[in-house]
């Protein structure tokens, strides 16, 4: 076999650049398609997970090794005990297994790992439930009853409005005002932030999943739900004067004092929507009158510092769900998964490279 076959009419082959050009175009086209899929080329500023985390990072100073949002927190551990009502709604093992071990994290909103606990409007609870069938259920819940932005674009706009102006070092109030003017959901959220009473403890605060999920039972029936953790500890208000006097680590210290006297408990309550209630928009709260079902009890028995505790290297991705629980089509819920993954990679890389002595409680190498 020769490298240049004669052409059918017997003449020597014509040297053509056409095949080489075609090969070049195919390779280039493949590379371009790959670059487009990766978000490197194409519509500039296309919203990717990386750009979203970049935007969140731009709202505050660098804190290597810490979560980009809800940076300050403590690890907690305890157990979850499901109810028969939970078993009826979902086949997830968490509801039928007796006392499932739980790893959790209590945190405050914002990106400053040294912020004052009592001054943070938003408090959060994240959970990792690991059942004996080898499955995991991770949750990320907040003290607000609904989300402040109806869409991903709105959420990004809100995040961008929080980036400090280089001239003043503070966010431009005009940008936040423009965001609020555009979105009634954001104004409703602001009204909540201004009027809702502050509790004096992580332990007597309610935490809401905000997004809609689907519970699927053993018969395959799907039930949309939104879940909340309702504290068994009675609510005690903390007024402005008390918040201003509180120490920077007030919530963590208060939690330790409570745990020294016994476990802290929350009832897990799911709300069932009526026809017409928004399923894919976390900024639309469901009316208080909707049917509610207690599906379990959460108990925390111990707390550990985040820097050395078991929750530090966990990504509380709310889309890590066991069989029996499925996500809704809420685009903000989907986006959280990608943004959390990107944030997790960045902080784990900082920890791995020894640049995060503050986040890991290690002495920085000289």
């Amino acid at each position: 076999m020769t490298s240049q076959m004669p052409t059918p009419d017997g003449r020597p082959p014509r040297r053509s650049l056409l095949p080489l050009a075609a090969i070049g175009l195919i390779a280039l086209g493949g590379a371009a398609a790959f670059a487009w899929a990766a978000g490197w080329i194409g519509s500039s500023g296309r919203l990717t997970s990386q750009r979203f985390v970049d935007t969140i990072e731009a709202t505050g100073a660098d804190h290597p090794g810490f979560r980009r949002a809800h940076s300050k927190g403590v690890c907690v551990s305890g157990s979850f005990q499901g109810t028969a009502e939970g078993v009826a709604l979902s086949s997830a093992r968490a509801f039928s297994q007796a006392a499932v071990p739980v790893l959790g994290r209590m945190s405050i909103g914002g990106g400053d790992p040294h912020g004052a606990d009592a001054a943070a409007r938003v408090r959060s609870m994240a959970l990792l439930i690991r059942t004996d069938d080898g499955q995991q259920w991770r949750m990320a819940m907040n003290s607000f009853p609904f989300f402040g932005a109806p869409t991903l674009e709105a959420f990004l706009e809100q995040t961008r409005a929080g980036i400090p102006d280089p001239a003043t070092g503070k966010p431009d109030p005009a940008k936040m005002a423009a965001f609020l003017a555009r979105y009634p959901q954001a104004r409703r959220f602001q009204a909540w932030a201004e009027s809702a009473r502050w509790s004096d403890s992580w332990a007597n605060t309610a935490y809401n999943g905000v997004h809609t999920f689907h519970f699927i039972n053993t018969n395959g029936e799907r039930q949309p739900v939104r879940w909340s953790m309702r504290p068994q500890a009675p609510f005690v208000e903390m007024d402005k004067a008390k918040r201003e006097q509180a120490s920077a680590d007030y919530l963590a210290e208060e939690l330790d004092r409570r745990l020294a006297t016994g476990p802290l408990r929350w009832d897990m309550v799911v709300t069932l929507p009526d026809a017409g209630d928004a399923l894919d928009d976390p900024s639309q709260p469901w009316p208080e009158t909707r049917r509610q079902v207690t599906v379990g009890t959460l108990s925390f028995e111990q707390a550990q510092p985040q820097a050395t505790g078991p929750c530090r290297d966990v990504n509380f991705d709310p889309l890590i769900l066991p069989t029996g629980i499925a996500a809704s089509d809420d685009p903000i819920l989907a986006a959280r998964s990608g943004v959390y993954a990107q944030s997790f990679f960045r902080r784990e890389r900082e920890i791995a490279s020894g640049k995060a002595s503050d986040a890991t409680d290690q002495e920085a190498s000289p």
Partner: protein
Amino acid sequence: MNSRPPAHFNLLARVLHWSMAVLILTMLFVGVTMVASLTLRPMLIELHRPIGIAILLLALLRLGNRLTHRPPPLPADLPAIQKSAARASHWVLYALMLSMPLIGWGMLSAGGYPIVMFGSVSLPAILPHSPTLFALLRGAHGLLAYLLFATVLLHLSAALYHAWVRRDGVFASMARGPGRDANR
């Protein structure tokens, strides 16, 4: 014993080659899209894990077949540098086909993630939960994906060069079997 070298890859090699070509290209695009996309990630990551394990199993089968079946030789008149490049790129492709799924599996293990295949079926962790291992493997998984894509493009370009420019039977040795090779 047939001592004459085969002119074509055996049927299993060809079936594995073309099905894995589809799977690997799909995986590379699913991978970069899923890491960037804010809305498609949940759906794509559910595809990415089982396809990755399928590629690992097929690559093991393929390696076994490759080691027990003599491949057709490259044309004698192919310049030595092109022969070396062809051999090197094939071993790079084999190394990446086998290591990428293992790195992905190890990375999820080290990140403390459940390694869900489908429904309630999960794989066990193959590494301890560790930020150092996770960061290393997550970084490697991304970089090696770019290397794999570049090697695939190079491999494709070389295959088309054999098919359209040299017309030396190299492309045909993978594209079809000896049954219709009437000219030999």
